[in-house]
């Protein structure tokens, strides 16, 4: 009994720890003035209207969404067939791929960006400073999230056995992939994609080093506003923080609801990367 109360208290503290910053940001985005009182002295939608009527914000939001979509497309097209191949046809390359997936976490993203910058300058200067380099780099650092999710669902669905069964049914490998394997791992693709989207949406270091002001994404805009110290912009930052969180949260809630609880863990995982990417 005592331990049950203890665990409840612990959970409540944990929830408070995670929720407080969000609640504070939300209140701030709605506050008329929040000085030396516990709660704001008044509430308004002024900041929300103001922020989204600025062309630079809608532009940055659009650029972030385009970057997210392109990153996602690159990762899904590259990672799903690769994971399928490694699990079903050549398990021996699995350990190599596993090692590669750790690289984006072993090396700081700023270092990865600087390294890319150096290599690209010498080898393919046409790519230097372009959106495509940013998209390729973002896809490269975000791919492990998708790879892990897809690999797990391939193993859980016993995709290898399913592929063999399909072969003995007379199915071509492409037919097997599209009609048997993909439907069986749909959950993994979707939850992995969410993590990739969250990473791309919040990624700052690569964008800062690789494209800078040439392609200002939402995180770049936030950083610029944060450091510029002009007027009432902290409220605008609060609006964007809450907006980004709300967008990703709604997306993952949708996925959980569609998956009928099968991939319930994706929401938590998503919240985790979203906050860590914010810091990175």
């Amino acid at each position, binding site marked *: 009994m005592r331990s049950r109360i203890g665990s409840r208290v612990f959970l409540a503290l944990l929830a408070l720890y995670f929720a407080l910053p969000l609640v504070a940001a939300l209140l701030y985005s709605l506050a008329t003035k929040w000085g030396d009182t516990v709660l704001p002295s008044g509430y308004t939608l002024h900041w929300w209207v103001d922020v989204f009527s600025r062309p630079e914000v809608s532009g940055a939001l659009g650029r972030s969404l385009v970057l997210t979509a392109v990153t996602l497309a690159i990762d899904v097209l590259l990672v799903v067939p690769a994971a399928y191949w490694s699990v079903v046809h050549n398990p021996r390359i699995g350990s190599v791929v596993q090692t590669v997936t750790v690289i984006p976490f072993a090396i700081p993203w700023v270092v990865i960006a600087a390294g890319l910058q150096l290599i690209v300058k010498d080898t393919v200067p046409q790519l230097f400073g372009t959106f495509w380099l940013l998209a390729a780099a973002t896809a490269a650092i975000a791919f492990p999230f998708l790879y892990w999710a897809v690999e797990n669902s391939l193993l859980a*669905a*016993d995709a290898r*056995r*399913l592929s*063999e*069964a*399909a*072969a*003995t*049914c*007379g*199915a*071509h490998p492409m*037919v097997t992939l599209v*009609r*048997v394997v993909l*439907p*069986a791992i749909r959950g993994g693709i979707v939850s992995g994609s969410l993590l990739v989207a969250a990473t791309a949406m919040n990624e700052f270091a690569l964008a800062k080093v690789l494209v800078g002001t040439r392609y200002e994404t939402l995180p770049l805009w936030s950083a610029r506003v944060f450091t510029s110290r002009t007027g009432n912009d902290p409220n605008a930052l609060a609006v964007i923080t809450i907006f980004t969180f709300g967008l990703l949260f709604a997306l993952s809630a949708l996925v959980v609801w569609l998956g009928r609880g099968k991939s319930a863990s994706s929401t938590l995982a998503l919240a985790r990367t979203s906050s860590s990417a914010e810091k990175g």
Partner: protein
Amino acid sequence: MSHVVLNGVTKRYGAQLALDAVDVSVDKGEMLALLGPSGCGKTTLLRCIAGLNDADAGTISIGGADVTRMPARKRPIGMVFQSYALFPNLSAAKNVAFPLTVRRRERKETAARVEELLALVGLEEHGHKLPNQLSGGQQQRVALARALAPDPEVLLLDEPLSALDAQVRTRLRDEVRRIQHQVGITTVFVTHDQSEALAISDRVAVMNAGRIEQCATPPEVYAAPSTRFAAGFVGNRNTLELPVADGRVAWGGAFDVEAPSGERALCLFRPEDVEIGADGPGLAATVDVKVFLGAVTRVYATCDGTTVFADVPSRSAAGLEDGQKVFVRVAPEHVQVFAA
């Protein structure tokens, strides 16, 4: 007429020889069981026939056509896996239809065939259900129907009953045999369960260490194993190692048979071939314990410090008491002798 012919099929995994130049053939409409302990190569052999493993050497032909280098999807086979391997996103009916739709059969023809097969395996009512809504036995019936759907020349069954619980297992075992008879399809059936192999196959190939030790009808394999391994693996046997004298080996007054050359011989005999009587002739022994098994009672008896077990009809065993002095004998034709 041989329908499936394997010639010198060899397969290596690194240094390990999984199949050692296996020759075997299966007649049209025959059911061959590949029986052996795990790691004996039986599943590898089946997968070579299916085309899921490539043989390193040797040839495989089905219906006279060489399929050795043909990919699995082009071979005229249907396969059932131990883990069912049903496509989880497709209903039972769609699973059965799958081999037909990938062959682009007409929709009407496919629907009729699916209905026919679901009826054959007794699942007419369950066609709309997803695999996870079916029991293990039902899933394996669907897998069987799916394997039979394109009317393949050979049906390959890889331990199809091993994942099922005992009761379902026996029922489905007999049903597999019924369906195989009804369809008249040439079948290769992998199992490590000897009673399964003996119960439903026309011939049993006993495998050990990548080779076929004996390939014969179930009664032959049971009564006259040709190798020591086959004798030890099929059925329960008493095994005694005894000295050879003058070309014969004897165990007291219980039996006296010809022996192969060598100083010692291994004598194997089945519990149902051991006679236990209150009077001689025979070897004097003491009843240790009785285990009631229903129709028969297993009697453990010790003579000269050696314990043998005998399956005695329960009616006659009723007269035996623990500790009773008895005489044990085995008819010479029931003793298999191998060099020790």
